[in-house]
């Protein structure tokens, strides 16, 4: 049964499937690292902690990028009311990106990082060795090529079709994503300067343009599942993206506190980043308001749950947990502690992992020819996945926050040489790390339940 409005939307499927495969890898490496925190090297030196961490974070970024691309390929033809400009190009770019991603991850795992740098001619244009941007220069160039091809494809689709607020916001976010990635090619020798521009990629992605992508995807799904007028949802979307950009761009200042930058950054960073929860605050009000005003009961209950869940979890993770340690006087003590890890985990899951799963939940039944929604049994499994992963992530965040508070107390607050060293402090945090690992296992169970839902089909009644 064909349930897609535009046949070219089907190119989103491999992107979604591959994103979820990488998501599994990310969680497995997260669990491995969680164990390494408490028992040290448990895999006999095969995968050192720094490599596991690099794979964990890189897989996260890459699976979210696959998710965003899949979302755009699904959403833009429907919004533009026209077929995708070139489904063939979308498929070629999928294989190029997938091959580059897999080769890079294998490179991390199979050879020492310095050897990988040598093999990939990093000396010619050194860009490696920086957190989250560890990819070899050649992979980064590949990402640029894929991004340009992708933007060309969806840009041409929008140009020949209908222009809506949703597809304009989405493409603005995606162009921003590509443009800010270019700062990863600038790698000054001065470490402070390097970090300064490094944040132009990292911060302006996750606290800037990615919020536009999230807002657009959420708006699209809310229109579909609630039946509320497009005009109402678009007005909210404008307000949200305005707040996201106003607060997020100058909010970059909260990364400049301790980078030898002028002192005014402590004021600018504190004030604007204290306002950064506002778009997420608005997003919760907007999501619940739209569901409140719904004009239909959509049969895809799982997608509605994901849409509401992402708004709440993004507000908690990105908004509340970000606010917790963003003011300069607080950040003086908390900078780079487990409180940052707590914020990072819940924010990435709530804002970005969940929005990708929201659109996957909405789009996959149609792409797979099932209809508006999966069968009830599959939705029950999916909702179990939602609750297990979400509750587990809440606990991971709480345990990391507990670890962070204790870390600040033992390592950062004492004066006159009474503070514990970093490693001595880590020993004292072991109980929190064990509990975090336990919550991580529950998260994995949730992910298994979620993935199982894709394999459950309606039982045929025997004739």
């Amino acid at each position, binding site marked *: 049964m064909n349930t897609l409005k535009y046949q070219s939307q089907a190119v989103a499927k491999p992107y979604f499937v591959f994103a979820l495969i990488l998501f599994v890898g990310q969680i497995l490496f997260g669990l491995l690292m969680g164990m390494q925190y408490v028992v040290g090297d448990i895999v006999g030196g095969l995968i050192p902690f720094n490599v596991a961490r690099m794979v964990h974070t890189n897989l996260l970024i890459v699976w979210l990028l696959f998710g965003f691309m899949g979302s755009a390929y699904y959403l833009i033809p429907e919004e533009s009311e026209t077929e995708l400009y070139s489904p063939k190009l979308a498929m070629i770019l999928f294989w190029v990106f997938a091959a580059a991603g897999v080769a890079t991850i294998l490179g991390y795992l199979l050879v020492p990082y310095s050897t990988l740098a040598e093999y990939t001619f990093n000396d010619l244009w050194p860009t490696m060795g920086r957190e989250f941007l560890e990819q070899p220069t050649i992979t980064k160039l590949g990402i640029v090529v894929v991004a340009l091809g992708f933007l060309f494809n969806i840009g041409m689709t929008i140009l020949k079709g209908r222009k809506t607020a949703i597809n304009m916001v989405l493409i603005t976010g995606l162009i921003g994503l590509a443009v800010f990635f270019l700062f990863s090619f600038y790698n000054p020798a001065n470490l402070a300067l390097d970090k300064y521009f490094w944040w132009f990629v990292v911060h302006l992605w996750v606290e800037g343009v990615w919020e536009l992508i999230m807002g657009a995807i959420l708006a699209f799904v809310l229109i579909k599942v609630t039946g509320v007028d497009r005009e109402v949802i678009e007005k909210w979307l404008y307000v949200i993206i305005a707040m996201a950009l106003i607060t997020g761009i100058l909010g970059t200042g909260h990364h400049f506190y301790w980078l030898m930058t002028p002192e005014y950054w402590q004021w600018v960073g504190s004030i604007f980043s204290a306002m950064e929860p506002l778009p997420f605050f608005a997003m919760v*009000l907007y999501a*619940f308001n739209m*569901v*409140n005003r719904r004009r239909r*009961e*959509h049969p895809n209950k799982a997608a*509605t749950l994901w849409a509401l869940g992402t708004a*709440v979890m993004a507000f908690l993770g990105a*908004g*509340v947990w970000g606010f917790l340690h963003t003011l300069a006087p607080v950040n003086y003590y908390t900078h780079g502690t487990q409180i940052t890890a707590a914020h990072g985990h819940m924010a990435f899951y709530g804002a970005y992992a969940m929005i990708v799963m929201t659109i996957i939940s909405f789009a996959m039944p149609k792409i797979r020819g099932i209809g508006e929604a999966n069968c009830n049994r599959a939705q029950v499994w999916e909702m179990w996945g939602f609750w297990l992963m979400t509750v587990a992530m809440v606990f991971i965040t709480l345990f990391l926050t507990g670890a962070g508070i204790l870390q600040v107390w033992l390592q950062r607050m004492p004066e006159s040489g009474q503070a514990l060293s970093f490693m001595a402090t880590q020993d004292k945090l072991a109980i929190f790390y064990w509990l975090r690992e336990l919550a991580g296992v529950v998260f994995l169970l949730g992910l298994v339940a979620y993935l199982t839902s894709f394999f459950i089909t309606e039982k045929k009644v025997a004739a």
Partner: protein
Amino acid sequence: MDTTSEKLTNKKYFLQKVAKVISIFSVIAAIGSIGYVLLANPSDGLKLTFGVVAFFFSAMSVVLFAIGNANLPDLSIKLKKD
């Protein structure tokens, strides 16, 4: 525009009730923090701290109130025995 035969419900779920109760406590905490800053004339550090606390609880109260008051669809699914 309805696509299913289900009717819109106006039921408040357990977590919504919890959200509403916490929203009321958040309002009280926000008002208390503002009152403390205005009436007790604390030091600059405490003024800043309680100002931040007031901002935090105000935002929380609005969000939780919206969640608590929303007319959510019934997201549960009853499975029939085969």
